[in-house]
């Protein structure tokens, strides 16, 4: 399989690229900074003897035509697109500057939608392709923290639902995950708490579920219950959950 991982320089994206390379797939890493992508590509090629390449693209303003040409030229097509990129901001609690706010929406929603849109014809033509997106449990309910991030991820999730509707019956399987807390820089610099899992665990589950059901799921699975409770929590109780 030829897989493109958007947001592959660190965290879940890097872990996912590792799982794909280990399983013998050809991987194209995409992220903002080649200085981060090159070590990942070298590491995976050396450890798994896999074909791993990389391309730079800034999700805040991606040149999607160039990215698409680059991917198709270097890989000669694609079978799977993983949209893993995400950006958080510690100030995302109502104290963010406008530039940072716009960047947050661009990287988490506008950029991903625009890249998926560019690759959509290729995915549809393929006949047996995968489109996988990653959202967050922060998008379950609007909270005083991750205000803009949660909104953008919720938007992305909505777009994925629409994609699933559009691509239903064709060859492209659309999967979306609400990922729980992982030990990545998205968590800030705090020590990982008990709910935090390694991104490798989530990545492994994503690869294992590739042929599985379309639609939205929680990873790790236990977040389903937590999210359900959070969703159903009446406002007088929910408003107290502020930090």
């Amino acid at each position, binding site marked *: 399989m030829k897989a493109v991982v958007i947001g592959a320089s660190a965290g879940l994206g890097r872990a996912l690229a590792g799982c794909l390379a280990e399983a013998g797939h050809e991987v194209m890493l995409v992220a903002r900074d080649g*200085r981060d992508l090159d070590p*990942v590509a*070298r*590491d995976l090629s050396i450890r798994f003897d896999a074909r791993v390449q990389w391309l730079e693209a800034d999700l805040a303003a991606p040149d999607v035509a160039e990215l698409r040409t680059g991917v198709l030229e270097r890989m000669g097509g694609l079978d799977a697109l993983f949209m893993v990129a995400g950006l958080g901001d510690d100030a995302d609690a109502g104290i963010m500057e406008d530039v940072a706010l716009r960047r947050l929406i661009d990287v988490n929603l506008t950029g991903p939608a625009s890249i998926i849109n560019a690759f959509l014809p290729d995915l549809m033509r393929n006949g047996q392709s995968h489109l996988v997106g990653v959202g967050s449990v922060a998008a379950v309910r609007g909270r005083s923290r991750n205000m803009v991030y949660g909104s953008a991820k919720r938007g992305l999730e909505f777009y994925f639902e629409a994609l699933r509707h559009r691509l239903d019956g064709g060859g492209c399987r659309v999967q979306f995950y609400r990922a729980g807390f992982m030990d990545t*820089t998205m968590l800030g610099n705090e020590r990982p708490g008990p709910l935090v899992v390694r991104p490798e665990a989530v990545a492994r589950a994503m690869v294992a579920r590739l042929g599985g059901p379309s639609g939205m799921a929680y990873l790790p699975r236990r977040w389903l219950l937590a999210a359900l409770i959070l969703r159903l929590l009446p406002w007088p109780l929910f408003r107290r959950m502020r930090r």
Partner: protein
Amino acid sequence: MTVPARRLFHCLGFGESALGWRESPDRYRFFDRMPQGACIPMGAGLSLAGASFGEGVRSVEMRRFDRILDFDPVQGAITVEAGITLGRLFEFLAPRGWLVAVQPGYPDITVGGCVAGNVHGKNPLAHGCFGRWVTALELAHPAHGRLRLSADERPDLLELTIGGFGLTGWILSVTLRLLPLPGGPVVTEPVKVDSLEQAAEILAVRKDGADLLYSWHDLAMPGRSGAGLVFVGRHLDEPKVAAIPGRCRALDQDRRALPVGVMNRAGIAVLNRMQAWRWRGTKSQDAAAATFPFAANPEYFYLYGRNGFIEHQTLIPWDMAEAYIARLRHLLDRHSVTPGLCVMKPFGGAPCLLRFEGDGLSLAIEVARGRAALALFADLDALDVELGCRANILKDARLPAAAVAAQYSGLETFRSRLLAFDPDRLMQSSLSRRIGL
């Protein structure tokens, strides 16, 4: 943007603590920024002194930079990012028949930490310290950018960085020469000794030819003769693929140390009996278990309790070994202190700057922290100076500046070269401030 998190850091053993900031980047653009205030790189954060944190200092964890950048399976060389742990590196190298020559006993330690501490492994006599196996480094410093260091490029800075306690900047990547890994098990045979002196004699004689050579002593018994075991290990070369290390159990003393320590004289006596019993016969271990003996039992460190322990490792010239041992025994009695651990090994390498290297006998003791322990260690400092010994700076959380100045002739050179490279002294730690750097 992420904000650094406030955190109270402790070194292993709680010998040194400081309230600082923790940052855990995963992209290279982090190193483009000019930091505000003092910083220090942090590997696993497991050293016995406050080398990776300081009061008000930003500790920058390197653990997310852990990739393999280059591997030469013919010549036996590897280039890795500094945050890769010895355990992960072993996992990659062992099935391919290679081994990092010098490895401390705990697999969570990072390669960057090994370089900054110029650590020793199980056979410092034959293999020297970690720095001997480093052929090149990439260093990043806010004032100088990214620098390549090797024998041909900035050799002075390479020398300063190996055993430089992270004070020259961020070590980004390290190129290491490797040793072929023998396929067979490590067979360790314990030799019973009645005293520290007897062990020192055996270590002096048998120092050539063993792959693993150290002694362990029980100083809890009346008379403190230091009866114990000398371990002589040999790595057999049989055609068999080496095992992979088992799951490493994380060492988390902050959360798991007993509320009250049990390492008093009686507790130590009991523990020593158990250890002597466990180690009584010839043992055959796979390479992974022999390389990382502490992976399986981090609980040992928790026994000292929240009050912790301090360690003192001294490099004694061979002709002073007997005198040192006699004086040590006397001091232990005078201060009524019983070491929870006493280990000796023959040492090698060449002394340079602040590195713990050179010919001699290394003697390390670990004692429960307290007033008596501090008084004992102060006397040991004086003894070290008197007998021409040197204490390991990275292992002693209270070693005062005066002791370092008296024992290390390279201190002034180290200080002036560091100042010449970094006049603003951006990298600082509890350790660097304590020893006056």
